[in-house]
């Protein structure tokens, strides 16, 4: 463990909001993107003379393009309802990590240049000139927000700090101050097809290896098909599922479900990534171009259904934005949308979450399950922020909460909920979302995980929980890394389909 990374002590549970420690995290900044990384995805290479004007120009454009930004910058009454709701504030005590204070970093500039009182009486309304110091503050604190939307649940106007963070990152990219981690990954997705930079042949090898392992383990010839035209289902999943632990266990779970249900499915080497970091940097063009890869793969392969694997922000993009960005959905009456939507099977929701698919099959009795196989586990479920507050599942509001839990209960006998203030729509981010899953931010990530760790500790102590299931690749990677800092085993976290994989019986039902 790195020497400068410290886990804060777990507090009394339930906790009271901590005292402020101004400036505690002012030095925590992710690496800046090189000019090569920036230019590869169409941004200026570095910050140059006259950036202030260009930043304000971009801000003006965003204000005209995004109602969210305009309304949110005007409406905040500084009531403070959101102030103690952010995991980064709770974990770091830095007041600038209070959602309203994070917004204020941009609102102060907005007021100065775009409103009358800010032009006339800047001090009175807390308006500030856009200087290099302010920009540096933006870079630090807009990279200490995981865009998890927890603050927006409690705000009386639904002000979503994530929208402000995205706008700030977009403005910084537009003046050449990008974040290395996210922008490098976006470059990779365009160059190679996935965030991890795993090329097609390597992917094919990995999948063959998985087929062999699964055959050995189960005796069934479960397939992991790649680029098979004419398959019914195109599965789009985070690339971590292909080899990272515990992610791969869920991939094996999906494959077993398809196998047991007799569904012909395929992965795509072109769309070998569900993740869409365009969301994190708030750039519409990148968001759209990354989403279009899925559309193209679906059209080329002629599939009838598009299913998304366990990935939180990818599911938000798929569920909420794919129809808009790439015509993947239903109800489109324009030629662009119809070209794909007439190919897709309208009896299914498009796109479908893998949990929706599995739960439908369980309800139909199409899977043979042996929940006793999971009896060595006492399971709890961590709601991932983008699924909980940015998407849905099934036919009714809140399906994103019930469906994964229903699956877990169907495949495991021992299930426990964490404290209600930390689940469902109030769930705490894992601490690594929104483009912050990078080593130089490890200290922030460990501290941001505090509220979840406190809630986990409670169910571990009281109920002996030893497995925290989740449906997000970032949550899995983040917890694997962070759990040991709080004295937990890193193997405690895993996917819902990892549990399915353990419980499912293949070949028994014909």
């Amino acid at each position: 463990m790195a020497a400068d990374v410290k886990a804060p002590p777990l507090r009394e549970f339930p906790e009271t909001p901590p005292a402020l420690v101004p400036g505690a995290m002012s030095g925590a900044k992710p690496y800046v993107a090189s000019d090569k990384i920036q230019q590869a995805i169409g941004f200026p290479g570095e910050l140059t003379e006259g950036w202030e004007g260009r930043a304000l120009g971009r801000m003006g454009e965003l204000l005209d393009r995004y109602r969210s930004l305009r309304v949110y910058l005007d409406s905040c009454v500084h009531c403070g309802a959101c102030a103690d709701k952010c995991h980064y504030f709770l974990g770091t005590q830095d007041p600038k990590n209070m959602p309203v204070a994070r917004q204020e970093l941009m609102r102060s500039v907005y007021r100065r240049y775009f409103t009358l009182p800010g032009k006339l009486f800047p001090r009175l309304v807390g308006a500030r000139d856009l200087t290099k110091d302010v920009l540096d503050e933006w870079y630090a604190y807009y990279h200490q927000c995981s865009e998890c939307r927890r603050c927006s649940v409690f705000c009386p106007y639904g002000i979503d700090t994530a929208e402000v963070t995205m706008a700030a990152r977009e403005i910084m990219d537009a003046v050449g101050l990008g974040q290395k981690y996210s922008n490098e990954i976006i470059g990779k997705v365009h160059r190679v097809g996935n965030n991890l930079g795993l090329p097609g042949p390597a992917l094919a090898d990995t999948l063959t290896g998985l087929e062999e392992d699964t055959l050995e383990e189960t005796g069934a010839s479960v397939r992991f098909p790649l680029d098979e035209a004419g398959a019914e289902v195109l599965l789009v999943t985070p690339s971590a599922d292909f080899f990272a632990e515990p992610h791969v266990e869920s991939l094996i779970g999906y494959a077993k479900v398809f196998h047991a249900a007799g569904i012909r499915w395929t992965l795509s080497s072109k769309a070998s990534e569900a993740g869409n970091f365009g969301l994190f940097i708030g750039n519409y063009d990148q968001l759209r171009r990354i989403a279009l890869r899925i559309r193209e793969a679906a059209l080329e392969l002629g599939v009838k259904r598009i299913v998304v694997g366990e990935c939180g922000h990818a599911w938000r993009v798929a569920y909420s934005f794919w129809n808009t960005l790439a015509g993947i959905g239903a109800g489109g009456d324009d030629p662009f949308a119809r070209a794909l939507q007439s190919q897709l099977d309208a009896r299914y929701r498009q796109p479908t979450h893998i949990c929706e698919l599995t739960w439908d099959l369980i309800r139909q009795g199409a899977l043979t399950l042996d929940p006793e196989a999971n009896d060595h586990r006492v399971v709890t479920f961590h709601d991932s922020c983008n699924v909980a507050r940015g998407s849905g599942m099934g036919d009714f509001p809140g399906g994103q909460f019930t469906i994964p839990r229903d699956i877990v209960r169907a495949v495991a006998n021992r299930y426990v909920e964490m404290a209600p203030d930390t689940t469902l729509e109030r769930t705490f981010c894992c601490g690594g979302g929104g483009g912050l899953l990078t080593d130089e931010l490890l200290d922030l990530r460990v501290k941001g995980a505090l509220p979840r760790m406190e809630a986990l500790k409670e169910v571990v102590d009281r109920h002996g929980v030893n497995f925290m299931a989740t449906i997000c690749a970032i949550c899995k990677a983040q917890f694997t890394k962070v759990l040991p800092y709080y004295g937990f085993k890193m193997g405690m976290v895993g996917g819902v389909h990892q549990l399915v994989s353990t419980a499912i019986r293949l070949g028994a039902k014909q």
Partner: protein
Amino acid sequence: MSTASLVFAALFYAAVAVLVGGLAWRIRLYARTPAPLRIPTTPAPRTRGGVALRLAREVALFESLFKGGVWLWLFAWLFHAGLALVLLRHLRYFVEPVWAWLAFVVPLGVYAGFAMLAGLAGLWVRRVAVERVRYISTPSDHLMLALLVAIGLSGFAMKYLAHTDVVAVKAFFLGLMRLDPQPLPADPVLWLHLSLVAALMLVFPFSKLLHAPGLFFSPSRNQPDDSRERRHLAAWAAPLDSHR
């Protein structure tokens, strides 16, 4: 007619013009700014009707704020509910004859005035006493509370200490509405009350008071969760489709 009456007449015409014009300008801007992506905070209603209910609960009950904390909710709700009734009670200066239901509300309005001041006091104490809220407060936040408290106190001063000729006040405002200015009683407390009210109207469209229209335009609250069933395209984003 006295100079003071003419000054107040002019002041109120200006204040109404700024309030109405400013709000119309802001609301038009909000309405015209597209919301390119579906971003309701979920779980969200799946239908338009459900969204209308969600917004109604936010306006009448401050549902989200309640989730955030009970004390803040209580003060906020006392203040706003009180304010709403006080404003209704004041309607009697602007309509003749006074409607039957309004005559019923008028006596309640007095208690509402106290509720409003109690709520404001709670909010102000909180703003000073809670470290987090103090940190995010700007001078204008305190001024806004001071303004509202002063309006309330001057109103109560007229009611309980230095009575003003409310019949004449009503005649003055009815006159303004008919573009036929009448004299305003020469009463310093009334002048104070009215000047502060005019100030409130003047700052409304330029301040955080825009939260009132803002709530109705907040995409995280006013969008239905129907992104898989309906294709949602902003005007500026639609032409992008033809490039692919």
